[in-house]
């Protein structure tokens, strides 16, 4: 697996190991510059995300995690460079639950059903088969029991399970989770991540997990994209979460 510091002029670039074998690439970022209103937040990003990989996107608040995520999902146009999709991709996006307005009187089932909307054309009712498929997805995420309750009345962990069911209902091959453990207690966090790891392995899903939680990353992720101070570090957990490297990064953060 390759490790690339995308800013070769910086101190960490000496650790690049381009000689390692690469898995089949799914998404390649090619000299990407991202930001808002032509103001770059991150520049010169070149990395690739392999098929069926489990990648954690790490970084402090304001480091550009959301900007990178939005660009990957196609919600934000890059300022320069490009995002190359190397194989057919359906994103199963699991946003932060805080972004949903509690005013909508939607049940968990109604929220999960949105996952099949792409396959049901405008003006058509959702067929029974798609409804049944949504129920299966809810069952698979252990959300079947509370799917009839109001979505905004569910706990943080329950909401995440409904949203993951919605992502699975899209028949996604890439699961993108934006801080799924925010506002979720320790026990629910543990079972949620165990579940994500399980479906990643069983269904060969590519997982991109945005998080702050280093122990979680160490336990579940295989790859890391670490955004720090305008730089993007990409490598395996073993390579990036070594004590020396952590100390180096934390030292940089302190300074």
């Amino acid at each position: 697996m390759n490790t690339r510091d995308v800013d070769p002029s910086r101190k960490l670039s000496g650790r690049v190991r381009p000689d390692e074998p690469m898995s089949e690439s799914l998404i390649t970022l090619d000299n990407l510059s991202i930001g808002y209103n032509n103001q770059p937040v991150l520049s010169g990003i070149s990395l690739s995300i392999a098929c069926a990989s489990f990648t954690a996107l790490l970084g402090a608040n304001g480091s550009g995690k959301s900007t990178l995520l939005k660009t990957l999902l196609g919600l934000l146009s890059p300022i320069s460079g490009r995002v190359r999709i190397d194989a057919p991709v359906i994103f199963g996006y699991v946003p932060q639950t805080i972004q949903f307005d509690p005013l909508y009187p939607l049940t968990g089932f109604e929220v999960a059903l949105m996952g099949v909307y792409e396959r049901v054309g405008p003006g058509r009712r959702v067929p029974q088969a798609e409804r049944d498929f949504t129920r299966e997805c809810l069952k698979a995420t252990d959300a079947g029991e509370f799917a009839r309750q109001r979505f905004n009345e569910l706990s943080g962990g329950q909401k995440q399970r409904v949203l993951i069911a919605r992502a699975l209902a899209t028949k996604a091959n890439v699961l993108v989770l934006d801080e799924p453990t925010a506002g979720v207690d320790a026990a629910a966090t543990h079972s949620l991540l165990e579940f994500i790891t399980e479906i990643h392995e069983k269904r060969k899903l590519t997982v991109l997990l945005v998080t702050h939680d280093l122990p979680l990353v160490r336990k579940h992720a295989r790859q890391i994209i670490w955004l720090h101070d305008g730089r993007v570090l990409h490598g395996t957990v073993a390579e990036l979460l070594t004590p020396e490297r952590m100390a180096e990064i934390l030292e940089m953060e302190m300074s």
Partner: protein
Amino acid sequence: MDTLRQILSPDFLLRNSVYTSVLIGLACPLVGVFLVLRRLVFMGVALPQISSTGVALALSLPMWLGADVTAHSSQGEHTLAFLGSLTFSLVAILVLAFLERRGRGMAEGRLGTAYVVAAAASILLLSKNRYAEIGWLDLLKGEVITISNFDLTLTAAALAVVLLVLGLFYKELLFVSFDRDMAATLRKRVLFWDVLLYLLIGLTVSMAVLSVGPLIAFGFLLIPPLTAHLFADNMRQLMVLASLVGGIAALLGFAIAYQWDLPVGPTDVALLGILFACGWCAQKTISIARRLYA
């Protein structure tokens, strides 16, 4: 009950007004649900007012252009008013929604300014139009009396369009309202559905303003969805209940206004306010009772 029977009789002199009120009562809450859920309530205040400025301007144009205003037929005048109302509503909602999407500046300030300037402009325009005072000032006050067959047909057509578009594209409109990012990742044409929803709101508001005036239009856009929201467990219930609350309040409001010789618009809105207050008390009582017996 006698009054209700009387106003529902086909021979009732003001039957067009009754039917129009009820149609507006049924239609406005359906689009009002989306205004409330998208937290665009201020838009619901500003839009009817801007729409009525369109009516005032359209009615003043022939006079300014030196046309013989008295020679205009009632239907011609209403067509002109409809065009003014529709144009102003659609342009205003598209511009305001665009500014809202850009997210710059203070949205409430913008909408408040649009509301107050539109209200002032309507009064100024009508005060300089000697023919306007006959009926259009009544409209601004919410007097639903002079409803022609033409108005009634237009209102019925607008309700049909609202029902058809919401029935056909409910899931797309809901999806882009609730989670536009997810909709965009699934390659839904978010902007297209947004514009369709805004056009629907603009059409409904302009019809409502033309038939019953800005006061009732806003009342029916806002209060029935809020009342229904107290009890609805899902979106379908919210929309059906909101529309029913609007339709029933319009009918009862007309009956009360007729019985006690009150202006219809303010009666409808006051009745909606009472229904909302009763609904709120009932909902609180139910939730306290549930907690006690749980």
